[in-house]
C-alpha cells in the first residue's frame, strides 16, 4: 500500500466525476467552489470547463477514495490536498501549476516558499468565493500564520497600513517566488519602494549615496519604533555615516533636552531640521541636501 507523500502510481478516476463527489461533499464550504473561478463551466481552463476533470482536476483520480469500503475499513484519502494526502507537496503543487504556470512561473522552484515545502493550499483557499489571500484586507493574516515576526513588526507605531488592512504583503513581495532578492515584485528593493514613493527616485542633481543604493540602509519597511520607519533614532542614525570637519559629530545627550539647552541637533526633526532633502536635492546649491 502507498504511504502518505510517496504515491507514485495513480489510481483510476471515479466513475461519475463530480456527481460522485457531491453526493457526499454537499456542505456550503465545499460547494462554494461553484461561486469561484474554479467552478465556471464556460471557462475552458476551469476545472469544470468542458472536458476537464472537475473535482479530480485538482484532487487527483478519486476512484479508490469514492469506492466502497468494508465496515471498519478506513476510507482511502484523496491524492492531493489535506494532511493525509498521498502525494508529496511538490506533486500536489504540480496539479495547480499545470493550469497556473503563467501566474506562478517555474522561478518559484528557487523561491523560499518552495524550498520550505509550502504548498499552494497552505495559502490559497481554492474553494472560496473570495480567497482571503487574494484580498488586501485579509491577505496579511494568511501570511502572518507563518511570518509571525513580520506580524509583530506590523504592529509597531510607525508601519505601512497592513494592520489596518489597507495594504497587503503582495504590494512588495511576490509570494510565488521570483529571481529577485527577497521575492520582491520589482527587480530591486529600491525599484519596489519607488512603485509608491516615486518622489524619492530621482535621479537627482545631488544624490545621497546610501539612498541610491538601498532604501533599507535607513528604513525598516516592516515597521519601526521610530518615525518615518527609520531603523534608528536620529541623530544617531545619521552619525553612523557622518562625522564632518567643521560640523562636529556631537554627543546628543540629556543636556540637549528642553530642560537643558534645547539642541537643534536632537529635537524636532534632528539633522533633518536643516538637511531636509535626505533623498536627494535638485537645487544647484543643494549639495548638503539643505535645498
Amino acid at each position: 500500500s502507498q504511504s502518505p507523500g510517496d504515491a507514485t502510481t495513480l489510481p483510476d478516476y471515479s466513475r461519475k466525476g463530480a456527481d460522485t463527489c457531491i453526493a457526499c461533499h454537499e456542505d456550503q464550504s465545499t460547494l462554494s467552489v461553484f461561486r469561484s473561478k474554479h467552478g465556471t463551466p464556460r471557462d475552458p481552463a476551469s476545472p469544470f470547463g468542458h472536458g476537464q476533470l472537475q473535482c479530480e482536476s485538482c484532487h487527483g483520480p478519486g476512484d479508490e477514495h469514492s469506492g466502497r469500503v468494508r465496515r471498519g475499513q478506513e476510507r482511502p484519502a484523496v491524492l492531493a490536498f489535506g494532511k493525509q494526502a498521498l502525494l508529496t507537496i511538490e506533486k500536489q503543487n504540480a496539479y495547480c501549476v499545470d493550469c497556473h504556470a503563467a501566474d506562478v512561473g517555474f522561478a518559484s522552484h528557487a523561491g523560499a516558499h518552495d524550498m520550505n515545502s509550502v504548498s499552494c493550499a497552505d495559502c490559497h483557499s481554492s474553494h472560496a468565493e473570495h480567497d482571503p489571500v487574494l484580498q488586501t484586507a485579509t491577505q496579511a493574516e494568511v501570511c502572518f500564520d507563518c511570518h509571525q515576526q513580520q506580524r509583530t513588526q506590523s504592529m509597531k507605531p510607525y508601519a505601512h497600513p497592513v494592520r489596518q488592512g489597507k495594504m497587503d504583503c503582495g504590494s512588495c513581495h511576490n509570494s510565488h517566488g521570483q529571481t529577485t532578492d527577497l521575492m520582491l515584485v520589482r527587480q530591486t528593493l529600491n525599484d519596489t519602494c519607488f512603485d509608491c514613493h516615486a518622489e524619492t527616485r530621482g535621479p537627482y542633481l545631488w544624490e545621497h549615496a546610501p539612498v541610491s543604493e538601498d532604501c533599507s540602509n535607513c528604513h525598516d519597511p516592516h515597521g519601526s519604533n521610530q518615525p518615518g520607519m527609520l531603523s534608528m533614532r536620529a541623530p544617531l542614525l545619521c552619525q553612523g555615516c557622518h562625522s564632518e570637519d567643521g560640523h562636529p559629530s556631537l554627543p546628543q545627550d540629556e543636556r540637549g533636552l528642553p530642560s537643558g539647552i534645547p539642541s537643534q541637533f536632537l529635537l524636532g526633526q534632528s539633522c533633518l531640521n536643516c538637511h531636509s532633502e535626505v533623498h536627494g536635492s535638485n537645487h544647484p546649491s543643494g549639495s548638503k541636501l539643505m535645498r
Partner: protein
Amino acid sequence: DTSGWACELCPFEEGYQADYDAGATYVSDDEARFGHATGYDNKGAYANVAGNGSYTKGGYRLDWLFEDLGLSSRFAQLDGNVDGRFGFSIGYREQPQRQFSSTRTVFTGAAGELALPPGWVSAGTTSSFPQLATALRPVNIESDRQILDLGADWKANKKIRVFAEFQRQNRDGVKISGGAGFTQASLLAKFIDYETDRIDTGIQYADGAATLALNWYGSFFENRNSSLAWQTPFATAPGAVRLQKATAPGSDFQQLSLSGSYRWNTWDTVLAFSLASGQGKQTDALLPYTSNPNIATSVLPVTAMDARVDTVNHALTITSRPLPQGRVVLSYRYDERDNRTQVLSWNRIIADIFDAGETEQNTPYSFERSRFGISGELRVWRDIRLSGGYNRRILKRDYQEVAEQTVDAGWAQARWRPLDWLDLRIKGGTDERDIDRYDETVAVSLGQNPLLRKYNLAYRFRSYGEFSAAITPTDSRWSIGTSVLLADDRFTKSLLGMTDSEELRVTLDLNYAISQRASAYFMAGFEETDALQLGSEQFSSWDWKAKHEDSFEHLGFGVHWRSENEKIDVHADYNRGSGETTINMDSLSGSASRLPDLESTLDTLRASIAYRWNDRLQATLDFRFERFELSDWALVEPDTMATVLTLGAQPYDYDVWALGIGIRYSFGNPNISIPN
C-alpha cells in the same frame, strides 16, 4: 473514460448574487491618528457602505467588491470576465495618511510659496518673536492617496496571455519639511501634490515545460509643487528673507524585461532566467543658485539636468533533483545602476546667505551588484531534511570610500518532522562583509573623519541562529507555533561608527478550538535590537559612545463564537503593542547620561456581534477602541529651540472609541443548493 461525466449535481449558478452592508458608525473624538488609514479622523457619524457580489450569464461574469464607501479609505473593485478568455478590472481606493492634528504654523499660503503674516517682526531666536503666540494657526499634517487601477487581459489560448495594467496614483496633502537658513531653520508645512502613472504590460507564454514573458514597465512621476519658497522668520542677512529649495523632481523610469523558465524531466531540472534593461530620466528645470538678489552668481552650467540612470538586471536560477531525496539550487543575479548624469561644476552658495567662493562637482553614484549562490537540500531520513547554502555578493561602486565589497554568507538548516503534527526547524549561518579597502583620502575629500567607517560600507561579521516549531496535532484542540531568532553583528574594524549590534526576536502563537463553534487564540511577539556606536566631536578618535536599545512587545488574543443555530456570530480581538527606545550616552566631554525613554503603547480592541434573522438579513454591531500613548522628547513647542521654529507637534495621547451598527442583506441565492 471521463468523457461521459455529466456533472448533473453541480450547482452552476447564473444570475445575480450579492451581499450589501449599510450602516453608520459614530466616532467619539477628533483624533487624526485614529483616522490614519481608516478614515475615522473626526468626531461624529460616518456612513458605512460595503458590499460584494457577482453576476453570471452564459460565459459572462462580473464580480464587484466595495468597502468603506463613506470614508476617506474607500475601496471599490470591479472585475469582468468573458469565457475565461478576456478579463478586465477597474479599481479605485483611497488611503488617508494622518500624522498630526496638533501642529501649528505661522506661515500662510499654499503650494510652493509660504509667507509670514503681515507685520511679522523677525528676531534672532524663537523666544524673541513678538507675534509668535498670536500668529500660530492650526495645520494638519496629513495627506491622501487616490489610486485608480485599470487592467485588461486576454488569453489567446491556453498558452498565451496578453495583459495591460495602468495605475494612476495621486497624493496630495501636507508634509513636514525643514527649511534651513544658515544657523536657523523653520519646520514647514509643505504642500505636496504628486501624480504617478504606472503601466505594466506584457505577453506571456506557458506550456507544460516552458514559460516566457516579455514585459514593459513604465513609471511617470510628476510633482506639481516642484519648489518651495518661504520667508524666514529669523533676523537674517540683507536679501536672505525669501528662501527657496527644490522639492522632488518629476521623473520617469521605463524597463523592458524578458523572463522565462524551462523544465526538463531529467532530474526534474528547472532553469529560470530574467533579463531587464531600464532607464530613468529627470529633466526638470533648475532653480537659480539662490533666491537672494544680493548675491551675484554666475550662470548655471545648465538650465535643466539631463539626469539619466541606466539599469541592467540579470538573473539565472537552476534547480535540480539529481537524487530523489535531494535538490540543488544554483543562482546568479546581477544588478547595475549606471548613473550617466553629466558631472558639472557648481558654485557653492550657502543657505542663500553667502557665496563660499568654491566650486563643487555633483557625484552621480553608480554601482554593480552581483550575487552567486549555491544551496542544497537532502532528505537524509524520512523525517529529517538537511539543507545548506553559500552565496557571495560583490558590490562595486564609485565616488565612495569603499569601491568594492564582498559578502560571503553561509547557512545550514535542519528540519525534522518526526510526526505529522510536529515540525521543528533550526537554522544558523554567518555573513561576512569584507571590503577591498576603506579609502580614507575619499573620506577626507568629503570632509569626513578618516577613522569613521560608514554603516553600510564597514567591515561586518554577522552570525545568527533561528529556531521554529509548529505543533499542530490533528486530533487536538491546540495548535502552537513559536520562533526565535538571534543575530549578532560585529563591526570589528570600525574605530568610529557602529561597532556592535545584537538582535533578538521571539514569537509565540496558540490556537485553541474550544468547541465546534468557538475558538480562541493568543499571540505574542518580542523584538530587541541593541546597537553600540562610537563618535568623535573632536574630529579625532572616539570621545563619545551611544548605546541604542530598541524593543517592542506585541500581545494579542481573541475569541470567536457562533451559536448552535448559527444565528449569532461573535468576534473579539485585542492587541497591545509597546515600543521602547533607550539611548545611553557616555562622552568624555560630559558624563554618562540616559535620555528619557521613547515609549509608545497602542491598545486596540475590536468586537463585533452579528445576528442573522434569516438567510438574507443580518444585523451587526461593531465596537472598536484605540488608546495610543506616546512619549517622545523630540516633539517640542514651536519656540523650545532657540534657532529652530517647529510646528509644535504633540505626542499622541488619546482614547477613541467607535460604535457602528449596520445591516447586511443578501440578494440572489444566499445558499448554494444542489439541483434535485
